[in-house]
């Protein structure tokens, strides 16, 4: 095995340090006098011993082996990999935001509470909801929070028979998983050949046991569920609630609001639509908005504005309780707030207009070279099928790997599950036409290669620091940590 990039542990050498702590200025006491012998650690944790420069070189080298939005185009569908503004980072690092303790007296954190309150007000307006909580840490956490509120609502009405949550077959995997964690059973509703929820199937599955329908709109195919009003009626008539998965909100800012479409609960992904950086997988932030009849069930505490300033209200007898220690991922919320204030109402509307323009442009230009399963205007993302290339022996996975050679992050692949050899492309509004064109040209070239020289695609990538990795062995014989060779 070749180890081209050493682990930090492999750079370690006893006697090196990369820290600087002050000298102890209180009388020294041997910790063995303070801790009972059984509880005093005898085996030291194997942590690295490196100098500060060793450390910086190590992580700089790692960063060079990583692709981010600042490195190049990242059209990962449903993830909204837009530009992460730099002022957001500076604001989040201000001492008055980064170095405040969540349990300080309220009068010492009025600026933080004001920011959170104002962010909630803005998110209410953008989504058309009546109240917002910032407590959930990410989208999936918001889904579960929303479903717990729906459960509490039904139970408060003495309605204990609503055990089922309906999700479309095109839904994000988190939807059914969140339903399970919230104690519901999942029922799947089919999509039609047009890629929209099948209303007849919805009527068939909805009933007195329906707690909610979870819906992404535009859906994961990038299509607007144009029968949304009718769907809301069907679900509401049966006594269920309508849940909005906000992963795709980037398509409709200032154009349509979930609250006006009949949704009762909405979660947002501030790390998607509102530029919280994705961080290599997180942290995110997943605020939840609700209509008035669900307000009593919001997680506590709730931020209120009183005569003497902002305060945290814990006196919420019907609340589902806490979903997270403290008040949510505040640092991400600061970034989202900064972004909203940088854009204003016109800017936010323009975001969705350009996100949709870019997606439609790419879709039209690529339709000649790849199968387009749903031939109509898309919203902020669209899906292509690689079934034509599959017949030539080139899989969607190969196409994705070949894109790496062109310096692009591939689209989301093999999702939604209902499209064969699926590629889900979301360009976002922050990309220039030149970038879109370069990606389109690469995709066209790959389509040609699939016909003329499939090996070059099948054997891709050719330019990355590693070639395709053996995932089967990784799962069969898992090595999940470094062990020092003895």
């Amino acid at each position, binding site marked *: 095995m070749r180890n081209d990039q050493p682990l930090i542990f492999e750079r370690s050498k006893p006697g090196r340090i990369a820290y600087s702590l002050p000298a102890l200025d209180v009388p020294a006491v041997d910790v063995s006098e303070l801790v009972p012998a059984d509880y005093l650690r005898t085996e030291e944790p194997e942590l690295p011993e490196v100098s500060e420069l060793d450390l910086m070189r190590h992580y700089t080298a790692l960063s060079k082996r990583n692709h981010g939005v600042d490195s190049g185009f990242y059209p990962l569908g449903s993830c909204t990999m837009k530009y992460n503004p730099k002022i957001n980072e500076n604001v989040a690092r201000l001492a008055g935001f980064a*170095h405040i303790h969540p349990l300080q007296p309220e009068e010492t954190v009025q*600026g933080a509470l004001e920011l959170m309150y104002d962010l909630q007000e803005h998110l209410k307006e953008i989504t058309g909801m009546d109240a917002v909580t910032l407590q959930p840490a990410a989208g999936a*956490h918001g889904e579960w929070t929303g479903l717990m509120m729906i459960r509490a609502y039904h139970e408060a009405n003495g309605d204990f028979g609503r055990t089922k949550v309906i999700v479309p077959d095109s839904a994000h995997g988190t939807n059914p998983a969140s339903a399970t*964690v919230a104690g519901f059973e999942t029922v799947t509703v089919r999509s039609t050949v047009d890629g929209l929820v099948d209303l007849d199937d919805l009527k068939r599955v909805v009933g007195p046991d329906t707690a909610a329908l979870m819906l992404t709109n535009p859906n994961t195919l990038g299509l607007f569920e144009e029968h949304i009003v009718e769907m809301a009626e069907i679900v509401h008539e049966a006594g269920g609630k309508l849940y909005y998965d906000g992963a795709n909100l980037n398509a409709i800012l200032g154009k349509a609001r979930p609250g006006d479409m009949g949704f009762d609960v909405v979660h947002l992904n501030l790390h998607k639509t509102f530029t919280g950086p994705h961080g290599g997988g997180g942290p995110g932030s997943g605020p939840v908005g609700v209509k008035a009849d669900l307000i009593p069930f919001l997680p506590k505490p709730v931020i209120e504005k009183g005569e003497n300033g902002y305060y945290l209200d814990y006196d919420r007898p019907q609340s589902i309780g806490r979903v997270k220690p403290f008040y949510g991922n505040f640092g991400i919320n600061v970034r989202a707030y900064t972004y909203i204030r940088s854009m204003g109402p016109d800017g936010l509307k323009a975001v969705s207009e350009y996100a*949709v323009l870019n997606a439609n442009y790419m879709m039209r230009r690529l339709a000649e070279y790849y199968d387009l399963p749903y031939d109509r205007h898309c919203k902020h993302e669209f899906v292509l099928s690689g079934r034509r290339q599959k017949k030539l022996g080139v899989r969607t996975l190969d196409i994705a790997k070949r894109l790496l050679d062109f310096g692009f992050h591939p689209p989301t692949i093999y999702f939604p599950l209902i499209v064969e050899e699926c590629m889900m492309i979301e360009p976002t509004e922050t990309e220039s036409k030149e970038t879109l064109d370069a990606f389109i040209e690469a995709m066209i070239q790959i389509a040609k290669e699939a016909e003329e020289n499939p090996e070059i695609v099948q054997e891709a990538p050719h330019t990355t620091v590693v070639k395709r*990795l053996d995932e089967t062995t990784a799962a069969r014989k898992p090595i999940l940590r470094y062990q020092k060779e003895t």
Partner: protein
Amino acid sequence: MLHRYLPMTEEDKREMLKTIGVASIDDLFADIPEQVRFRGEMKVKPAKSEPELWKELVALAEKNANLKQYVSFLGAGVYDHYIPAVVDHVLSRSEFYTAYTPYQPEISQGELQAIFEFQTMVCELTGMDVANSSMYDGGTALAEAMLLSVAHTKRKKVLISSAVHPQYREVVRTYAKGQQLEVKEIPYDGGVTDLAALEAEMGDDVACVVVQYPNFFGQIEPLKAIEPLVHEKKSLFVVASNPLALGILTAPGAFGADIVVGDMQPFGIPTQFGGPHCGYFAVKTPLMRKIPGRLVGQTTDEDGRRGFVLTLQAREQHIRRDKATSNICSNQALNALAASVALSALGKRGVKEMAAMNMQKAHYAKSALEQRGFASPFAGPFFNEFVIRLGRPVDEVNGRLLEKGIIGGYDLGRDYPELAGHMLVAVTELRTKEEIDRFVNELGDGHA
């Protein structure tokens, strides 16, 4: 419109519309039904330029009393610690912070390797076999530990020590409601979990027993005495742990813990009003295939080069959907990186030194207060936090301290009525002797 984040020019727009075959962008929104189309102007504050917005937000931040200006003795699960300068420089590499989950390993080796190193560090500190790539925070990690225990044992009752962080317990109760689990609290005695009460509650129906080490009061729980009570009934032993304390204390893994969770905030993550912090989750090998969240594994590429991939994904929501035992998707990867960098900077020696310094300073502060006549209700060994009885309302005392530039400790009466008038005091390596002496002097004399 002209905006620095929106690059399309009018000319670009015209060309693109022509390619699409529509006259205007509005035509692309024609599928939104008239009745739900938003027509007005959103009541969003008008856009501000970068310098104007910066000025406004600096002023807003300055309305908060920050821990760099004030001297803080507040902990209760979130601590003001030394953050090596290198941490923020690494986090500011945009190759890390502007990337997403490493779904494409060939162009994500940096992130994958960093997580693999993080997993290793968590295992080393906790004495466990397998750690995941992070959870939201310590509280939700603990709730997920409960869900794993319930799924693994097929039992629906959970015992949790009342000396576990009150907010963690609240989160656990919220998660329990969804799956109709019974959560029973075990009282504390002398500042640690009451062993007799625990033994009395133990039964074949208990999925797991949860304790915190050191616990919410800073006390070192007797894990050695608790473990046999738990395993005798084939329940899982869940320990929530401050990872800094594990620089000095015997690892929970060595005491037979099955699941160890907690928050990496003490390592390189600012307090930032309670989040984002970084949950960690570690298990023994038998639970490996049930651990929630993302895992990174080592493998090789076609040329035999070492590389890293996301692995054992069959556990996760995007594969198992409604059969998944956890719904976690986004995690706290960037903060896991922060913790890794801080742990690399501190290293083997620094973690121990910093932990020892916390312990010594906290003990100095407690002795100084005792000399002034303040009594502590708990006599057991503790880490960097302890409880003292003030004999007066804590918020009143804290109000006076604030005027002197000191943020006082946590008011335990908020969660433990029997501890009204008691303060939980945290002393980290950042507090100087002079600051501790000033704090003690400001508190005056006790009424012990």
